[in-house]
């Protein structure tokens, strides 16, 4: 049961990280006119955080051996 509990804890942590990353403090911080490689800063920020979160979720939920 311990790996299962660990997985749950990781996923809750990812949820909280995502909720933070998608919202005011960091998001308001990048709401600026700048660009990255010609793309608007908030656009790059949001899609990057989003993609990283999906990657982290995929790693956290992958089935353990024998499941």
């Amino acid at each position, binding site marked *: 049961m311990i790996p299962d509990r660990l997985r749950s804890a990781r996923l809750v942590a990812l*949820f909280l990280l*995502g909720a933070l990353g998608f919202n005011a403090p960091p998001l308001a911080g990048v709401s600026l006119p700048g660009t990255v490689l010609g793309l608007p800063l908030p*656009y790059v920020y*949001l899609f990057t955080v989003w993609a990283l*979160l999906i990657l982290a979720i995929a790693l956290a939920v992958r089935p353990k051996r024998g499941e």
Partner: protein
Amino acid sequence: MWSTGATVAIALAYVALLFFIAWRGDRQAAAGRNPLASPWIYALSLAVYCTAWTFYGSVGRAATDGYGFLPIYLGPTLACALGWVVYRKILRIAKIERLTSIADFLASRFGKSAFLGAVVAVVAVVGTVPYIALQLKAVATSFQLLLARDGPSALSYEQLSLSAAAVLALFAILFGTRSVDLTEQHAGLVLAIAFESLVKLVAFLAVGLFVVFGLYEGFGDLFARAAADPALAAMLSRQGASEGAWAWMTFLSLLAFWFLPRQFQVGIVENVDERHLSTSAWLLPLYLLVINVFVLPIALAGRMSPATAGASGDTFVLLLPLSADRAELAVLVFLGGLSAATSMVIVESLAISNMVANDLVLPVLLQRSGSVGGDFRQPLLISRRLAIVAVLLLGHLYAISAGVGASLISIGLVSFAAVAQLAPATLGGLYWAGATRRGALAGLIGGFAVWAYTLPLPSLVATGRLPASFLSEGPLGLSWLRPHALFGLDGLDPLSHSLTWSLLVNVVAFVGVSSLAAPGPVEERQARRFVDVFRYRGEVEVPVWSADAPVASLRALLSRFLGEERTERALQAWADEQGVDLDHMGQAHPELIAFAERLLAGTTGAASARVALASVAQEKTLDVGEVVELLDETSRVIAASRELAEKSQELETASAELRRVNEQLRELDRLKDDFLSTMAHELRTPLTAIRAFAEILHDNPELDTEKRSEFLRVIAKENERLSRLIHDLLDLARLEGKEERMVAEPVDLAEVVADGVAALDQLAASRGVEIEVTAPMGLPPVAGDRDRLIQVVINLVSNAVRFCPAATGHVAVSVQRRRGELLLGVEDNGPGVPPTEREAIFEKFRQIARPVSGRQAGTGLGLAITRRIVARHGGRIWVEDAAEGGALFLVSLPTRAADAPQPIPLLLGA
């Protein structure tokens, strides 16, 4: 460009394709190859979340609000992160209790309350009709846009909306209401939905690529041109964006993703394997990310293009390819939008119809029919089909009246906010056993009322059915009742304002009323079954039915809802599993009644199942105290039986261990016996020889001197062999016994080798064997007993000398350094040791028969003693083939000498 006829034909062909896929899916499932077994199909079907709102509305929102469309997809991503934790619990409960809708879920959790189920059904219908209307509107509008370029369309908006509703109703009825059992999956329908998810993704990506790389020279070019426009530049950098509204939208869409009726349908009811959640957890968010990459670029392109000037942002996706004369792309877009809209309408109407039929219509039917009556299957199926038609008709009516003016997203968000009212009771009921039916009702009704007052009601002002003063000054001039600034909460956008108040009222009423009175007996029981589902896996069963129902009447009741054949099959399966004979059971067990109730719940919903069963079985009148006691009792029994299982497992392990040890002891005993008999034999041989020669000498005093001295020499030699044997035996006994302690002092192995070889010079010279020693200078010392190590060298080298051919014999002794140990090698050019004997020669009295001329007999204990000495030094001894065909004995000894100079007991393990 496209005639009305051609466009209609394309749309109809697409719908026909959907029918075909659904039909194929059902056929495959019937043949045992269920397409739903794939986690990919599951994840794609969850993308039914993306409706026409996503397809057309996101761009509309982005055109005026920049990034404002995005939180709607960030919320579900967060929901997916929690899916394994929260959603899996809902899924597990729904499968155990055979729940088939969110209304059923809440009704069952809160004491199988028919009233609560009905309220949830009403909330769902009211909240969903505008959302369905939105889809019909999108289909009709996109159809007209496609045709409008060639003059006025032959089909009116009303006709288009109505025909879309009709075709979709037909599809939902055909593939969604075939079986009366709602827990049965609709393989074909879900397969079609998954296919539609692919179509809308491909279509949207196609138009996105066309805009970014066809109309512009890539992302950089598009964004750079947009940045030149101050208004767009401000939008792109999120200047003045409301963080509060953003956070509310994220949270709202998270709740919607879990609790929208259609999401419950595809995510819970149509799920066949819990493990699919681990695939959908990343695949669905990935889908959402990909479909959103092009939203902002398309919106910007629409805003900058002269062709779409003045048009609503909701139409950009279709207008951009049309204005560039890309007819084929426009048709693809149209089909993508059609997919998005139809998949939503089909699943949503199916989910709603189940709620309406089970939670609104069936309770009335049950009441009317009383305890006796005919077959319920037809009335149930018919009411579901009628409900589908009714919901779609309502949607159509809404689409052609009030909803037309509003943008796609604003209609959708109103629906989301209604569904969010289900969240406190659902999540609370999932984790808080103290939540009660009254609390859930209070929260739901309160929250829903505030929602109605603050969101849909003010929209009547826009259509002129309410005076504008209603908004600005409040009803009857009561300014604290202004719908967009309730109790003076001003300065928020209407959605955030409505959510703040409605969810606040909802949660406060839910928690507050729940804490006024303890839950009733049935509530208490259901609460435990839900909250502790992972601990007891549905095993916590309180007998709420007394055993006074005849099996025959139970069977008759089930047949009325399930049909005779299905009833018989289910009962037989239960009887087989329980190992009972139904035909000889007069009165039904309470467990059988509980099983029948759950079986029925899959068709009628939990609340109606309870009502129906009450007509044949008596419900026990337990008070809460008794239920709690029974629950604790069952929990204790389960815990105790688990403990017992653990204990017996432990015992089994222990007894296996004992058996193993016993086996080992027997083996040792046998070895000892063998050893004793071998030893007796070995001792007797020289003794017999000595005795025989002594007798000869005694009996024949006339023997000549030469003979006498020869016999005496034999006697002396045998005597010497005997004492050597006894010496070795004592030595071995000392080594095997626990009393012998070796001194562990730093010993120079090179010196030991030199001393050992020097002692054998005589023997080697007498046999003409050459001994060669190689030992590098400056080797680290080993920890050990010097005399014992010399014994090892002497044993190995003397063995080697003995087995070498006389005169041409060659023995090489070497010492090498290897990681953390020294390696002593003794190599000869004798006959070698065959691989099968390589382990055995180290045993006591094991000598291999080797033809050695002039062999000097050994005692057969030398190698056994050597191995024990080496083992006590923490080393290993083994034998390999030598380069010249002889034997190579290798001894490895660890060199951790200097660390432990003090004498330590080197004991041989047991």
